């Protein structure tokens, strides 16, 4: 299928909209590692640009954007701590957006997914793999610098506390947090809305101000993306 038109997203900088022959549109980012795919996504050539399709069914951040997240705080040049990087699907798009001036610290505990993540990091000089446990930020305090934002997709019952601990070590004041909440991995017995409320309360207690929250249906069931700012009181 041929590309008909490409334009930058009017709301989210660094994100592109690709219009295809059949009239459908796709999200995309500019490929930082031209010619290389990360998860079998499509590559589009548009003049000088090479764009990578950003699949909202594979990436919760893309889903959140399609659901109209208030703004995309991640911008060119930012340093990001990415908790729960898995095989690098979303982190690679974050790496595209922040560009070579930006940095992505991509952390995951599981050796199984880390094998693939290291391969992604090798082709992207702005990505740094960390095989560590997000619950123990002191075990990587000697590697990670202060960051502009934390992106967390850790699917742990105590995830709000985990991100807050990491924020204490690594997040700038007024830095942002994007937290993907999967209600079903926190408590299957509770209503998703209740779970979201609880997580948000924990964040508030730990010095976060909630900016926005979007539900990710129909891309992911019982998922929400929370966007918050870190304002620790001294």
């Amino acid at each position: 299928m041929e590309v008909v038109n490409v334009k930058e997203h009017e709301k989210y900088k660094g994100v592109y909209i690709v219009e295809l022959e059949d009239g459908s549109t796709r999200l995309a980012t500019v490929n930082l590692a031209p010619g290389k795919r990360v998860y079998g996504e499509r590559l589009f050539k548009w003049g000088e640009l090479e764009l990578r399709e950003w699949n909202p069914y594979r990436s919760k951040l893309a889903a959140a954007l399609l659901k109209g997240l208030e703004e995309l705080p991640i911008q060119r040049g930012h340093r990001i701590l990415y908790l729960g990087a898995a095989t690098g699907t979303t982190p690679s798009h974050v790496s595209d957006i922040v560009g070579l001036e930006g940095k992505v610290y991509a952390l995951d505990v599981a050796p199984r997914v880390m094998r693939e993540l290291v391969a992604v990091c090798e082709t992207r000089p702005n990505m740094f793999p960390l095989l560590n446990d997000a619950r123990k930020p002191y075990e990587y305090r000697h590697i990670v610098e202060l960051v502009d934002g934390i992106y967390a997709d850790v699917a742990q019952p105590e995830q709000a506390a985990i991100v807050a601990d990491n924020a204490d070590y690594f997040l700038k004041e007024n830095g942002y947090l994007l937290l993907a909440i999967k209600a079903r991995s926190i408590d299957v017995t509770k209503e998703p809305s209740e779970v979201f409320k609880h997580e948000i309360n924990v964040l508030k207690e730990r010095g976060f101000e909630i900016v926005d929250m979007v539900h990710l249906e129909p891309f992911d069931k019982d998922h929400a993306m929370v966007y918050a700012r870190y304002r620790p009181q001294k």
Partner: protein
Amino acid sequence: MKIYVVQHFTGSYALNENKDVVAFVHGPKGLDDMVEEALKIERGEPTAAYLRLLEKLKEMGINEIAVETNEEAKTATAKGFDAKVEPANPIARYFREHVAEIAVDTGFVKSIEDFYNLLHEFTIETTRRKLRRAAQKRDLLAAQAIRAIDDIDKTTNLFAARLREWYSLHFPELDDLVREHEDYVRIVAELGHRDNITVENLVKLGFSEEKAKKIAEAAKKSMGADYPEFDIEPMQRLARITLELYKLRRDLSDYIAQVMKEVAPNITALVGPLLGARLISLAGGLEELAFMPASTIQVLGAEKALFRALRTGGKPPKHGVIFQYPDIHRSPRWQRGKIARALAAKLAIAAKVDYFTGRFIGDKLKEALRKRIEEIKRIYAKPPKRKKEEVKPAKPAKRPPRRGRRGGKRKGRGGRR
């Protein structure tokens, strides 16, 4: 004035409350050593840079410092500092905000760009090394392989028994003449129809002249039904596959022997690769086995009997899978418990040495065990006299005694595999 000490993979840095770097000691610049030192920080061990920085601070007359972890504080306190633990303190956060510039200013790297290139190389190498370590849990390979062997044993027994019944329709006399399953299966697989069972062919398969004569004779006079090749062929196919399984079993046990020699040389020296692998498999891994007390190792594999004993207040089992150790099952009953206890104690040591150091002390352990076994055999040569007044049970049973099969059956079984 209080000084804040912050760890980084490039070294240890000391900053004052005004956020000035007052002292620093860089770590090694070679990637290999850099990774090793950084892993120490992760494990909470002091790095060479940290220790040197503390000395420097001492010379500067500094007494009061703040660090981020208990381990750092402990090291500093031992050197006479008044050390406070303040994780994620504002100075440490400031350091992390400007770490690239600080690394340039203190001369660890020439430029910000160099810093991030190094960081990239460093994180990838560190992660690779950790991955390698995670992948090197080869003890689990041995544990899975031994389970596969147990599965094969079950399967070959089942197939051999089926084949005996099936082929007996054609040649019933063979069942009694060849007791060994594998020999029986080989005859069916290689020769098939009893017309092919001749002295010459049997000798080729490795049977003795005498035995071959007996079998060939029986084949000639057999009272089994005479089937065409068409009906023999399916039996032969099953026999061939079963024969393959016997071969696979041998290959697997060679494989286990090799892996065990690498991952657990001391355990292997004591009890051989197969029993050793079985112990690792039951424990769930070499690490788990290394953390077990000897008393647990002694009854590994006899959990059913052990828990029954605990429940009913009866006698606990003397041994689990270590029953397979020749000195245990070949000894008289009254010595077995003592030998099992001695062996388990040596195994506990062997597992710890295998897991933590990998040094080889297997020959010493084996020698000590042999001496102890000889001692047991000498001192307890005769069976103990029966105590006459023994009117048990002394311990009141918490639950009513079990119905059905008596607990006594467990004796000498070595638990389940």
